[in-house]
């Protein structure tokens, strides 16, 4: 318990350090840092109705983050959540486009399955390259993000293109109202229910199942569990595909829910933010539920800033990036370099 409290305190300390760095950058760019932070807090939480916006963004982020947690826990740096999210959304759009006219009770579940399958497939090939050949998964999943982004541009500009579109924004035909699972607000019983189900199932999987325990051990000490007879490659691949599938599920929900259609280059920072949530939460599912609200608030504020406060939305990207820079730090500032001279410096 004490270790957990210490971890939470350290995470908060590094988030504050990151915010301080952001303040310096804002001042350097000629903005008033207090005004910027005030506007962000207004847009995220303080304004009336801001909570709905924050929750709307927190839900897809939470679902994607649980996927990141499972693949990180099983010891693989799957940083391709963005690409898996995109491919899931593409798969969903194909299904909803081809099955247009069939009853919603059939189409919506198939859309969810297509989303999960799309995300899982986009995680499968880096996973296979990793466990079969040892190809570094950080690079393959990053490259997968770029390729998925181009595939998204390709399908929204070609096969799935909305012929009545203006041509300025490449997008698919809008999803028929019968298949929408929420309005623009992104908050509906279906979406909230799905997020809760994902959260509970993943919590049980991580904390109360043999797979979760083995995956956790695999991440900490792969050599030991191989000696114990577990199959590292199978565990890793399962973690990869679960992570991809959940990112794809988030993509399916975005298409059927608040977005209502597939737009080229939509939500470009979702994957990165989900990775951040996983790390800030210390790879814990229950922690991710709380942390998602904070980052959902930031995502919501990035829409509020340019419109109502006249401040650039890039401020939110900078805050996220600065948190990423510091969040994995493990030394207590001030103590680190007291002992540094005695400690043999391990490989960085």
């Amino acid at each position, binding site marked *: 318990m004490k*270790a*957990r409290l210490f*971890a939470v305190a350290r995470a908060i300390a590094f988030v504050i350090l990151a915010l301080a760095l952001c303040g310096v*950058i*804002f001042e350097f*760019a000629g*903005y008033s840092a207090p005004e910027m932070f005030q506007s962000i807090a207004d847009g995220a939480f303080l304004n009336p109705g801001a909570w709905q916006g924050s929750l709307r963004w927190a839900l897809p982020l939470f679902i994607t983050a649980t996927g990141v947690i499972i693949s*990180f*826990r*099983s*010891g*693989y*740096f799957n940083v391709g959540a963005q690409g898996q999210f995109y491919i899931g959304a593409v798969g969903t759009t194909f299904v909803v486009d081809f099955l247009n006219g069939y009853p919603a009770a059939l189409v919506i579940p198939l859309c969810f399955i297509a989303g999960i399958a799309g995300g899982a497939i986009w995680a499968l090939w880096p996973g296979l*390259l*990793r466990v079969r*050949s*040892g*190809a*570094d998964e950080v*690079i*393959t999943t*990053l*490259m997968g993000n*770029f*390729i998925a982004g*181009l*595939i998204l541009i390709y399908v929204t*500009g*070609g096969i799935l293109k909305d012929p009545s579109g203006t041509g300025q924004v490449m997008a698919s035909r809008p999803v028929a109202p019968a298949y929408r699972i929420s309005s623009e607000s992104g908050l509906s019983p279906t979406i909230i229910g799905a997020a809760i189900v994902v959260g509970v199932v993943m919590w049980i999987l991580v904390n109360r199942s043999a797979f979760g325990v083995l995956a*956790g051990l695999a*991440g*900490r*000490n*792969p050599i030991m569990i191989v000696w114990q007879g577990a199959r590292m490659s199978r565990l890793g691949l399962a973690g990869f595909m679960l992570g991809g599938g959940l990112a794809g599920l988030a993509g399916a929900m975005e298409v059927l829910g608040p977005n209502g259609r597939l737009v080229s280059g939509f939500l470009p920072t979702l994957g*990165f933010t989900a*990775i951040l949530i996983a*790390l800030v939460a*210390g*790879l814990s599912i229950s922690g991710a539920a709380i942390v998602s609200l904070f980052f959902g608030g930031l995502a919501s504020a990035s829409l509020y800033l340019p419109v109502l406060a006249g401040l*650039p939305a*890039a401020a*939110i*990207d*900078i805050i*996220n*990036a*600065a948190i*990423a*820079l*510091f*969040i*994995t*730090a*493990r*030394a207590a500032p001030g103590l*680190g*370099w007291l002992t540094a001279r005695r400690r*043999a410096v391990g*490989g*960085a």
Partner: protein
Amino acid sequence: MEEFVIATLRYGTPLVYVTLAGVLAQRAGVWNLGLEGLMIIGCCAAVLGLVQTGSLLFGLALAVALCVIASALLWFVIEKLRANPIIAGLGMTGLGLGGTDLAVQAIYGSQATVNAPYGLPRLGPAFGDFGVLSVLVAAMPFVVFAFWALLRRTRFGLQLAASGEHPFAARSVGVSPARMRLIALCLGGVLCALGGAELALGSLTIFAYGMTAGRGFMAFSAVIFGAGHPIASVAASLFFAIVGALGIRAQLVFGDRVPNDLLLALPYIATVIGIWISARLRGGAKAASAFGELRDY
């Protein structure tokens, strides 16, 4: 053919400079995934410095200064705060992308591309068709040779490699691995600034948001592909450049039959294949990355 060589050099030169930065960091024992962010900082600072003061030299100096500061920050976070280098590097990349976006909006009030009045000096008509290339392209072979000599033929290069491969051995002869990493990252910052300047001012003379488009990650992959050896890594990055140039060429030739967006994906696919080949040749990455450090309980 000459056209193709020119396209390859245009695509490849920024990549080569940034790859050398990656080689320095890799040999010193740092996985530098911040290359992408450093490169875009270089692009942005060079263009904004040039546009704001009208002096190319000031733009380059600004790019070098900011990249070195950002590299030093990355070093501090990885070495002193003992952060995970992969996540910290991705954070630095995000900081570069967001920071350059913020800077452009702060100065011009919009997200439009910034046009520079002129670019880096060109080689000129004396070089025939190759005259359109910038001086940094011509300097590239010499820079590569200089870094090869520095890394493979000097005491400093050996100390750097020792800091990466066996920090304890480096310490035992009085070399501080932490300081060597700082030097490697800062020197890499200078190279990233040059690579970014070449990308933004070499043939285009513009800055656009996200214009590096994964080239920093490609350079990092080239380092892995080339096993951290300066010449091999540069060769790998030139291979990616050839694929990129082929993609551009294919757009002109088959533009109506093959979708452009899929041809644009060629360099990324080549990178994945490169990483795969290098894993097969060298037995692959280390066992599952030690993740205990990311978890606290």
